[in-house]
């Protein structure tokens, strides 16, 4: 049967019947024609490729069997067992611990605590109506930990919750603490966990390096029932913390519906919510209302709706997420809508290291370094402080620490306390001689030029060898060292001076500091920008906010290099080479290692080799002298760059643009790692300084300081500041000034000689 015949036989007759019933014969005729052409056209649609049915058209059935009917309308055909209905684990969620010290290594939501004895501080958010009764920790410890003697002790808002052994070794396991009544308060709570870890076999600093426990923060915190009776701002903060754990972005929906106001709302929400929540930066993503489910359940979200009247409310979304709904009328400023809600007041914008003023004895307590007893075999403590931005000492002036400390008698030989400033060791104190009595005001002088304007880090490292080292440590926990908070730090006077350094600009970066050009999108997506913006959101409002230019690797030419001659290829290598590709080796060395005979050739030509070596030695010394007298920072920068590999590089090479920093990133770098390193450096020091700074694959900032940078005096010359200011100028380029003075002296001597000779000449 042809298709056309089929149409005539099946389409026309029913159509006529229908139209007779409707009484519209004329239209019916037209419809017949339309129906005829419909199928013909349908065959021809889509490039005329509607294929004919696979099987020939058959007659229709005259009845339907009960079996077919039951199968077709079986109520069970739509049913699927949902695990949510039966899985009890999905009936609750965790208000997670927020790690306060971002210096601990973190991978996704897991942080690692190493060493014999560590105190780690967390925040945890609670709600009055959420009925939280259990604090849960999800941990796994290394195989070297001795579970019988390794434990953690938890306190909540200063109340001891108890101690549990670290028994989960092979995989993560749960440790629950029942909360006494009235310990938890609505809002932010402080959790302190003391880790005591003992090695199975050995004792001493080396053994302590092998001790670790991982905490999965996404599964550690307060257990909250999913069927909350009511939600409010506190519940939202709990959920926000849960959502942000492991750098999961928090979704903000519908912001674009605010039209031209959306950008100001975007900036405000990113900034304010980062200032509200402690711990790692909160990353956001912006969506329309209709979204596909991302990986894992959402805990918190913000939804913006244009409305006739502005208000804020909190609801549970269809997916169970706690949603802050912002109904926004035109013209409403975000500050107005969130005003008056204490939980949304800025809390973390001003957390900066304490300021140390020169010529004052500053107690360690003022630096946040409380008296601490050490009973472990290795410990390291970093204490961050700030010096005024116009403080500068380049001379040999001394700063002084007066250390109040005590250590136990009869400690094993090799026990020591190492003090460092900004990574440079300043004093090694032996702890194996004497001991048993307090030592007050022990003077430790060090060169003040080790400190910089802005953030500085004072580090204590304690080493106590095991006694013996090849057996597990004894169970005694008596302190071996105490460093008192009454110890003081005194920093010498400095005239108001500055020297080019990106540290000052880095400290004043804010969420609005990011700048991009037309090529930036090749290296930084919009999401990357938001992530960096979140990391910079906790800055204090700066009077002169600085700028961070985001640069693509194809756009290196846009980085102003001042008088430095940075090699573009070396810059690229710094971020393009992976960590496994080591620094560029010297070409000659490489050739030498590949050619086994090359090593013997100098022996066959001893005289030529001697001449070459001597000549190169002379050249090297001349170059050294030239670099000191007329420092050529470009060569030194390039030599330094050959040794560097990392995720990102920050530049501030042009001294005429002191408030701008340029940033380059590796194409395969994780923007969250970079953001975390930035946030950590701003809060805890150890960040980028100098003219170029590389963020290594290990998460450290390695800095390069131009040798020819020149200090600038910010105040008038006076009798009081002359010596110190001149000292800084001379210290910045000592050889130059020495030769200059020698030149002047020589010139003076020649003039004097000429004067003597000329006055003694016999006049004829």
């Amino acid at each position, binding site marked *: 049967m042809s298709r056309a015949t089929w149409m005539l036989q099946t389409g026309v007759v029913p159509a006529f019947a229908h139209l007779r019933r409707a009484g519209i014969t004329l239209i019916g005729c037209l419809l017949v024609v*339309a*129906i005829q052409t419909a199928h013909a056209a349908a065959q021809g649609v889509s490039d005329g490729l509607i294929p004919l*049915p696979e099987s020939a058209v058959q007659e229709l059935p005259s009845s339907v069997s009960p079996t077919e009917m039951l199968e077709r309308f079986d109520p069970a055909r739509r049913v699927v067992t949902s695990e949510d209905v039966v899985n009890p684990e999905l009936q609750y969620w965790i208000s997670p611990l927020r790690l306060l010290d971002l210096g601990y290594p973190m991978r996704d939501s897991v942080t690692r605590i190493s060493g014999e004895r560590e105190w780690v501080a967390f925040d945890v958010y609670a709600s009055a109506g959420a009925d939280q009764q259990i604090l849960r920790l999800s941990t796994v410890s290394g195989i070297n930990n001795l579970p019988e003697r390794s434990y953690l002790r938890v306190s909540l808002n200063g109340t001891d919750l108890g101690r549990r052994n670290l028994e989960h070794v092979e995989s993560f396991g749960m440790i629950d603490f029942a909360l006494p009544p009235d310990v938890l308060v609505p809002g932010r709570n402080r959790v302190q966990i003391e880790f005591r870890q003992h090695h199975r076999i050995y004792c001493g600093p080396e053994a302590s390096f092998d001790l670790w426990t991982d905490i999965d923060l996404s599964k550690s915190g307060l257990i909250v029932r999913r069927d909350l009776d009511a939600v409010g701002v506190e519940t939202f903060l709990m959920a926000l913390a849960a959502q942000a754990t492991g750098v999961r972005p928090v979704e903000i929906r519908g912001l674009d519906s*605010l039209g031209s106001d959306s950008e100001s709302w975007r900036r405000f929400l990113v900034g304010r919510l980062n200032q509200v929540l402690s711990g790692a930066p909160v990353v956001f993503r912006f969506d329309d209302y209709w979204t596909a489910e991302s990986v894992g359940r959402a805990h918190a979200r913000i939804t913006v709706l244009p409305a006739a009247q502005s208000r804020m409310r909190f609801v549970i979304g*269809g997916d169970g997420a706690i949603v802050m709904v912002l109904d926004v009328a035109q013209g409403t400023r975000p500050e107005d809508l969130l005003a008056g809600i204490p939980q949304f007041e800025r809390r973390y914008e001003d957390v900066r290291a304490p300021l140390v003023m020169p010529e004052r004895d500053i107690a360690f307590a003022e630096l946040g370094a409380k008296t601490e007893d050490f009973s472990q075999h290795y410990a390291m403590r970093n204490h961050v402080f700030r010096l005024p931005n116009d403080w500068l000492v380049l001379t040999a002036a001394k700063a002084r620490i007066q250390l109040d400390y005590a250590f136990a008698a009869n400690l094993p030989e090799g026990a020591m306390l190492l003090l460092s400033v900004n990574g440079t060791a300043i004093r090694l104190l032996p702890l194996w001689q004497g001991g048993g009595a307090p030592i007050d005001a022990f003077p430790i002088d060090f060169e003040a030029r080790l400190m910089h304007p802005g953030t500085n880090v004072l580090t204590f490292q304690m080493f106590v060898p095991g006694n013996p080292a090849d057996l597990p440590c004894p169970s005694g926990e008596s302190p071996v060292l105490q460093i008192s908070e009454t110890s003081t730090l005194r920093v010498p006077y400095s005239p108001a001076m500055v020297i080019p350094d990106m540290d000052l600009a880095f400290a004043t970066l804010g969420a609005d500091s990011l700048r991009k050009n037309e090529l930036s999108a090749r290296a930084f997506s919009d999401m990357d920008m938001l992530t960096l913006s979140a990391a910079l959101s906790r800055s204090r409002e700066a009077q002169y906010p600085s700028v961070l230019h985001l640069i693509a690797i194809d756009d290196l030419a846009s980085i102003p290099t001042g008088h430095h001659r940075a090699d573009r290829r070396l810059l690229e290598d710094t971020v393009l080479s992976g960590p496994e590709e080591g620094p560029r080796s010297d070409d000659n060395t490489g050739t030498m290692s590949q050619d086994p005979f090359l090593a013997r050739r100098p022996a066959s030509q001893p005289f030529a080799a001697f001449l070459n070596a001597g000549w190169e030695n002379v050249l090297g010394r001349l170059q050294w002298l030239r670099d000191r007298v007329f420092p050529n920072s470009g060569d030194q920068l390039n030599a330094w760059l050959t040794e560097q590999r990392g995720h990102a590089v920050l530049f501030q090479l042009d001294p005429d643009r002191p408030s701008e920093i340029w940033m380059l990133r590796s194409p395969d770098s994780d923007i969250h790692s970079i953001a975390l390193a930035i946030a950590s450096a701003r809060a805890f020091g150890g960040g980028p300084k100098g003219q170029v700074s590389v963020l290594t694959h290990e998460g450290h900032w390695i800095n390069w300081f131009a040798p020819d940078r020149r200090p600038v005096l910010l105040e008038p010359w006076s009798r009081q500041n002359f010596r110190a200011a001149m000292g800084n100028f001379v210290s910045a380029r000592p050889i130059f000034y020495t030769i200059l003075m020698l030149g002047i002296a020589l010139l003076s001597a020649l003039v004097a000689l000429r004067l003597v000779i000329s006055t003694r000449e016999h006049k004829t």
Partner: protein
Amino acid sequence: MKRRDFLACAPAFGAMMLSMPAQAALQGDLAQTGRAVWESWKSAFLSSDGRVIDGLQQQSSHSEGQGYGMFLATVFDDAASFRQMYQWTERHLAIRPDALLAWRWLPGQANPVPDRNNATDGDLFYAWALVRAAARFRDRSYLERAQGIAAALAETCILPMPGRSDQLVLLPATFGFQHDSHLSLNPSYYMPLAMREVAAATGTPALAACAQSGEALLHEIAREGLVPDWVDVTPSGLRASEALSANAGYEALRVPLFLIWSRVPDHMAVRRMAAVYERTVQPGVAVPTVIEPLSGVVLESSADPGYQALAGLTVCSSQRGLGATIPPFSPDQPYYPATLQLFAVVAVHETLPECVPL
């Protein structure tokens, strides 16, 4: 005057209600704003040859799925996917001597279409998709195909209601639902908006009249309780189905969706279901899917986002609130709730912009 300026000046419907410009602000172009959701649905349920796969039903495809998918393709402005589904359907299901489609195609079988009976809802959505496609993709041939289907539906599946000759009923299929003593009807096969649009576009007034009768029928059923999956119609009136599901189950879940979508959110059937949802649903956990119609006792629940979306839409429609507890779309749910969730998206977009998901 800018859109947001107008919003400020326009008298609000109340603190929570939206003015028309605000509706526009919320809606945007769904083809753009909902693109991610549509792509997610396609990747989960649409094969490369245009077959919409229902995994729970032996990986089969049916006229309902093809019609649903093609309709969604018109909403999301996806001409290529529409054409693929259309071609596959014409090749594999358009095998009846009339313009209607065989209801199911089974993969891997010698005779993939053992039952050539049709399914009225599948035919209706197929025709509706063709009507929308004719306008969206500017191809009149789609409309001509829709005209054939509409005429065949009017001819074979629309009958006067027993005992009430002034009203029409929609048979679930050409065969199998006309009995000596009664007709078996599926209330969820009534999609008034689709019936009216197809009627208007194809010149098939019987479909529009049937939509009118259907709304009245649903109202009559809902006076007694929730609308069930199946109902028997006798010359003396309505009664619970004896042979098929009499519960308000997976079939009947569509009734409030289709009524809201058809711009009758105040319909008794919607209010009945909204009352059950308001009483039982907690956001983020399982929602009722099978309910005893008279007592309202929940017999089954599901946490599939699609069913949660229906609940969120129905409650929002009932409460006239701003924002609905509709979860994000998930492709990790079966075809049926996933597709209903996209329908909820379209329903919000077309009729209730204030019910965007929170």
